């Protein structure tokens, strides 16, 4: 891969997480447990879609093949997506949605905080803009994890089950590979493997306050870097991409 191809791949990894999680949160529209939370979920989701737009728009320009943000979002198949497996996991109940969100918010906060120092000016500006949003997302999701964990017996059990169910998707987020290494060497990307210690501190303090048990690291799954996704992503893309594929260039 040449430099541009590596940067393109790297931007897809960043942008695809935002796009898919934004879509997942949008699935709560009209179904959230209370009105207040409906608005919160949509706010967070739209923030993520906004971040995805900036990152995919930039990725399209770096690629130089004439693809814009919409073409990257709506005309790529499952194997071409680079979002973490964690991100595409179904919403489940509200506890699972919040557990997934908290796990990712803490990660994205650390990642984008580091990216504000990127030598790539466009990327550092996108990171700085997004970081304010992510700071709020993290507060919102960790608040819920703490309150449901340290809530009733039922909410505690549901939140613990959600954390347990998602725990094996975490190691993938901190993997380094040739693309990540090259981006770190170029001063553009950040070494996610060194973020793990701070992420652990954050998560441990949230889990402790929530009276939740940190699961044992007994299993893990990987594959998003090679486009090997869980079966859930295809269904998500089918819904998200239907309209632009059925009516290309539709305007509304």
């Amino acid at each position, binding site marked *: 891969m040449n430099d541009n191809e590596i940067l393109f791949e790297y931007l897809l990894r960043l942008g695809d997480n935002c796009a898919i999680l934004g879509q997942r949160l949008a699935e709560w529209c009209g179904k959230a447990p209370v009105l*207040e939370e409906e*608005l919160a979920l949509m*706010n967070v989701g739209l923030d993520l879609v906004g971040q995805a737009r900036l990152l995919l728009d930039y990725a399209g320009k770096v690629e130089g093949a004439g693809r814009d943000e919409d073409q990257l979002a709506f005309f790529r198949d499952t194997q071409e997506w680079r979002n973490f497996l964690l991100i595409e996991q179904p919403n489940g109940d509200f506890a699972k949605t919040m557990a997934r969100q908290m796990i990712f918010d803490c990660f994205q906060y650390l990642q984008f905080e580091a990216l504000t120092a990127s030598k790539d000016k466009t990327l550092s500006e996108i990171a700085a803009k997004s970081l304010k949003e992510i700071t*709020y997302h993290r507060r*919102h999701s960790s*608040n819920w994890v703490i309150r449901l964990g340290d809530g*009733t017996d039922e909410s505690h059990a549901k939140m613990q089950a959600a954390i347990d169910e998602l725990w094996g998707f975490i190691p993938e987020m901190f993997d380094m590979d040739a693309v990540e290494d090259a981006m770190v060497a170029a001063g553009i990307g950040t070494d996610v493997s060194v973020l793990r210690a701070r992420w652990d501190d954050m998560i441990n303090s949230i889990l402790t306050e929530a009276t939740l048990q940190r699961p044992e690291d007994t299993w893990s799954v990987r594959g998003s870097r090679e486009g090997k996704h869980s079966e859930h992503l295809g269904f998500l893309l089918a819904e998200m991409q239907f309209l632009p594929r059925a009516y290309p260039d539709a305007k509304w």
Partner: protein
Amino acid sequence: MPENSTESELPLYEVFIRSKNGLHHKHAGSLHAPDAEMALTNARDVYTRRSEGVSIWVVKATDVVASSPEDKGNFYEPNDDKLYRHPTFYNIPDEVGHM
């Protein structure tokens, strides 16, 4: 949480927002939240998503002490005929700004 359905609803909070150019907090509405911290974040999402505010207060609705409608007569009506209490006879120069 209590089994009783009305009691198991999340408590109600009254929300007060100070807008960018506003001088004081104004009542914006109310919302349900599990506690004060979540009421603040909910208020941010419900009432300030179009940049309406720079500061938020939330108060548990049960902590608001309100005058009752029956007090209307003895509370307010005696003031109606005391015009001299209103400083309406002065011209305020523009430079003074908000008063």
